Each structure stands twice: as C-alpha cells, then as structure tokens.
C-alpha cells in the first residue's frame, strides 16, 4: 500500500507546476479581473457592485467601435497570414529536401529571437519618411518626393503579419508533414487538376493545422499592444490601447477590467464561431498540433 501512496504523491508532484501555473497565473487573475469589472466607484475609496461598467461600454460607440475594428483587422491579418503562410509551410513540409528542412524552419524562427519592440522599431526605420525604403525609392528615381509609409492601417497589418506568421507556419508544417505523398499522387492519377487536388485533398487534410494556426494568430493579434501602437497612425485605435489607457492614464481600473473581460469573451466567441463554421473541435486542432 506504501507504493500506491508513493505513486499518488509522484503524480501530484508532477501535476503541481501545471496546476499552480493555471490557478495562480491564469484562473485567479481572471477571476479577480471579473470581480473588479463589477465594481462601481461612487466616491473616493467607496465602491459598490453593479454592471455599470458594462452598460457604459454598450452606451459608448467609441469603445465598441474600437473592439470591432480590432476584431476586423485581426481577422484580416489572420486570413492574410494563412494565405502567405500556407505556401511557405507546404514548401517546408513537402517540397524542400530533408536536409534543408531544419534550416528553413530555423530561418522562420529567427525573427522570434528579437523582442517585439525591436522588431517594431526595425519597421519604423525602414518605413519612415526619411527611412530606408523611401530613400531607396527616391534613389531609384521611382518617386521624386519622400513618401511616408508609416502611421497607417496597412503598416499595422504588415507589422502584425510579420510578428505572428510563425505561429501559422508551425502547426501547418506539422500537419502537412504527416500527409502521405501518395494521397496527392492518387489525386493527380485520378485526373484531378492542381486546384482540385488542393481543394479536395490537401486543404481538408491540413484543416486541423489551419484552424489551430488561425486560432493562435487571431488571439495573438487581437491581444497585441506594441505593434499597433508604434506603427499605427493618428486614427488607429487598438482595443488593448483602450485597456491600457483605462488602467494607467485614467486610473479607472474598474472599466479597464471590464474591457479586459470583454476582449476575452469576444475573442473566445469569434474562435468558437470559427470552429463551428469549419466543423472542427478545439481538441482536434490546437491540442493536436
């Protein structure tokens, strides 16, 4: 009976870091955030409970417009990332030689070794009016005046794609890697064109990877802070910026917490909808890759 208890202790200890991580760093802060979001300030150091913060969110078009804007751009980024990432992943998984696979994969990883902030500054150096790209275009004689490429939504989208594309490529490569080449060959032998093979064989097979990549990319994009702030222009609001402003500049933790909860709920809802529409499950996609 001693060994049985020892096994149980062993299991508990193994499980402990994970449990502590989930409880202390994920569950408790989110619960705390939710409770905070239900507080209403009635005066200095006096609070009551209620849903006023949520009502305020609904009544203020600026807030939900920003949330919708963030979601729309995030979806756009997700779609573009998939479009750009899929061929890359397919090349690494199916076309590249065995020896070069590792090197190619590493090349995709390298940008991640540098922090978000530095990467955003890299884009600023390239794209600003007196920056590298503008200078090069002038030197080539393609334009005769400096051109400002920063401070607009297109730049934000490009910057975000660059930041998150790896998270699309990795799950795609691992799913595509498991696909037997004979499936594709069979498709061609049976008279399918390239488009048909892609549509009827490769994409259905890669679906779990596609969905997993899209979920991760969408969540990362919607929750990103630095890239939209640094590259965005005078009209570009991002929802995380709103949360920061509420917490830091306005000292309004209650409403900041409300926005945090809403962002979590909203992005989760989008992911759930995406899973429903694509007929996938969370266990079959993210958990697998």
């Amino acid at each position: 009976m001693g060994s049985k208890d020892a096994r149980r202790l062993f299991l508990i200890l193994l499980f402990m870091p994970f449990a502590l991580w989930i409880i202390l760093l994920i569950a408790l802060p989110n619960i705390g955030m939710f409770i905070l979001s239900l507080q209403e300030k009635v005066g200095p150091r006096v609070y009551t409970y209620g849903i006023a913060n949520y009502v305020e969110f609904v009544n203020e078009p600026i807030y939900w417009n920003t949330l919708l804007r963030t979601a729309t751009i995030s979806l756009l980024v997700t779609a573009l990332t998939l479009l750009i990432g899929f061929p890359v992943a397919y090349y690494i998984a199916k076309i590249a030689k065995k020896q070069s696979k590792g090197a190619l994969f590493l090349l995709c990883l390298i940008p991640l070794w540098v922090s978000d902030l530095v990467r955003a500054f890299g884009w600023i150096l390239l794209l600003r009016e007196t920056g590298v790209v503008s200078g090069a275009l002038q030197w080539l004689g393609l334009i005769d005046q400096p051109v400002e490429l920063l401070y607009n939504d297109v730049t934000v989208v490009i910057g975000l794609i660059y930041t998150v594309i790896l998270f699309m490529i990795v799950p795609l490569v691992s799913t595509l890697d498991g696909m037997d080449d004979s499936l594709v060959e069979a498709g061609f032998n049976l008279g399918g064109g390239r488009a048909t093979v892609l549509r009827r064989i490769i994409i259905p097979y890669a679906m779990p990877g596609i969905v997993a990549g899209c979920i991760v990319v969408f969540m990362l994009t919607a929750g990103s802070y630095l890239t939209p702030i640094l590259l965005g222009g005078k009209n570009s609001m991002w929802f995380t910026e709103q949360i920061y402003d509420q917490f830091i500049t306005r000292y309004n933790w209650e409403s900041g917490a409300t926005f945090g909860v809403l962002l979590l709920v909203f992005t989760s809802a989008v992911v759930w909808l995406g899973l429903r529409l694509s007929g996938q499950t969370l266990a079959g996609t993210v958990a697998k890759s």
Partner: protein
Amino acid sequence: MNGMKAKLAIGAAVALGLMARTDGAQAETLRLLTWGSYAPDKVIQMFEEKYPDINVEVTFSNNEEMIAKLRATGGGGYDLAQPSHDRVYAAQLEYDIYKPLDLSKIDTSVMDENLLSGVKANTTIEGEVYSVPHQWGTSGLMADVTKAPELKSWADLCDPKYKGKTSMRLKRTILLGTAFAMGEDPFAAYSDLDKYQQILDEVAVKLIECKDNIKTYWQGGDDLSNLMLSGEIVASETWDSTAYRLFSENQNIRFIPPETGALAWIDTFTIPRKGEADDAAYKWINFVLQPEIVTMISASSGAIAAVQGGVGLMPDDKRAAVEAAFDDEAIANLKFFANIPPGVEDMEGKTLEKIKAATAN
C-alpha cells in the same frame, strides 16, 4: 497516514517557499521610483560612497505608472517616489498611497521659496504636507526657427501652412494648451466641472479639426526627437527638456513658450505609505539638493532644480538653451499645473479618446 504526510510535506514546501525572502542583508535598500533621468549612475555611486550602508535601487517610470504601481500595492514596494505636484493630492485622497513628510528632516532652506510654498499648498491634506519640490520644467512648443519662424501659440500647430509637418502628444497637456489658446482658463474651471466639460468639448472640436494637419501623435521623447531631427516635422508640442537636448544638436531647434504661457510642472519628493527606508529617503533628498549634484542631475534631465538659483546651477549648454527660450516676461507668464481634482482625469481621458477615434474631414 502516508497521504496525510504527503499533504503536510506539500504544505511545508509551499510555506517555506513563501517565507524565503531576501531579508537578512545588512545594508539598507533605498528603492527609488523616479523619472528616467533623475538618478544618473554617477549620482547613485556618489551617494553610496557617502552612505556605504545604503544600497540604491532605481525604477524609472512616469506619473501615471507611478500612481498605478503604488495603487496596486497600497503604497508599498518603493521608499521614495517623484510624482508631479499636481498628481499628489487626488491620488492620496483616492488611494491613500503616500505618507506625510517630516519636514524637520529636510533642508528646505536651500529650496526656492516660491516653488516650495506652491508645492506645500498643493499637497497639504488635513494639515499634513506630503511633498516637497525637486525639479521643475515646462511644456510648450518647439520649432525649427528656420522653417517655422512665426510659431507662437498652441493653435499654430493647426495652422494649414504647416500641414503634415507638426506633431503633438495626445495627452492632457495639449488639451490644456488648446484651452488657453482659445482664451479659456481651464485651471480656474476645475472648480466647476460642468464648465470644464464645456471647455473640453470645444477643445475636442478644435483638435479633431486639427488632426488632418498633424503628421502623427508622438509617443515618447525619442520618437519626438527623431521626427524633429530628421526634419519630418518642423514644429511640435514638447517637453522643454527634449527641446533643450535637441538645441544642443541643432541650434535652430528652439523651445518656444506659447504666448499664453508655458505650462509648468514641478516633480516632487513624496514618500509612499508603506515605504520602509524613510531615513535613507530623507538622506537622498538632502543629498541631491547639494549644488554640485543639482548640476549633475540637471545635465541629465534638462530640468531646473527647485533650489535657489536653480537656473544658474544648470550646465552651460542647458542654461544657454533655457536663456534662448525664456525671457523674464515668459517666466512671469508661466502657468503652473493646478491640482487635478478627482474625476477630471476621467473627463480628460474621454475627450482624448474622442479625438483619437474621430476621423478628420
């Protein structure tokens, strides 16, 4: 039994982990929460040489983050903070994060009397004084005088002749500056928040119209310096210290006090409520008010020390920049930031959001 033991073992392990703190060090630690340039390495080194038993740790921050950090811990984690004078009163009333100063431990005789009495008046709650001044400076305008020679009002940033060539930071300073430029006195309106809201609404209309004229909203000093030095913009709203730094690189870039008066701030010494090294904090305050240290800190911050003859103690290049920017009239015209009453931050925050979200034209 064994299961019980297992639980006990786990409990003990967790308890030990929680108790294992880095006490026991002999040296006292002074944890400063201050601005980027207010505690240069050299000054810290000199302080630690003079007081070998005190170890200085510095966290760089800004007004908003200082308050957020202290609020999160109820005034713990730091032994001396340096919020601006207008940010102490409301923060203390709302969140109780500071403790009163013992003025007998501070050599207030070296301080500039006007600034000292101003800060005291601003930060006295129930007869207790919470802050004394350290450094002061202003917010105003900056322009490349060869390209924007006529810039003199906050409103000139919105002049179509500089279209796409100006910048500002979308924070409360520009709201206040624009209000002054419209002939209002926003500080006087703090006592009547309805009136203040009305002013803010008018300011919002102005600044939304102005959006089209502006290249971008700058986010920080480096950002602004790059925009200005590269010539991408010719004029901007600015902190004076940033303008002084640029002046030493390009003499055409001048700080310009707006005709309605530059907005003046005073950064203070204030002790957090759960500060654990008050004596060391007082020693630091007295130490950095010595003339030679004042010069070193002014050299790094570009701000003027709140000591008697503070301008004279600035290093030569910074003093030249100040003298190029301010005459006596401009000094007399300074508008010191008034205490921010509770609630005003929310109103201003809403206005700023409205401006940011609006699409011009």
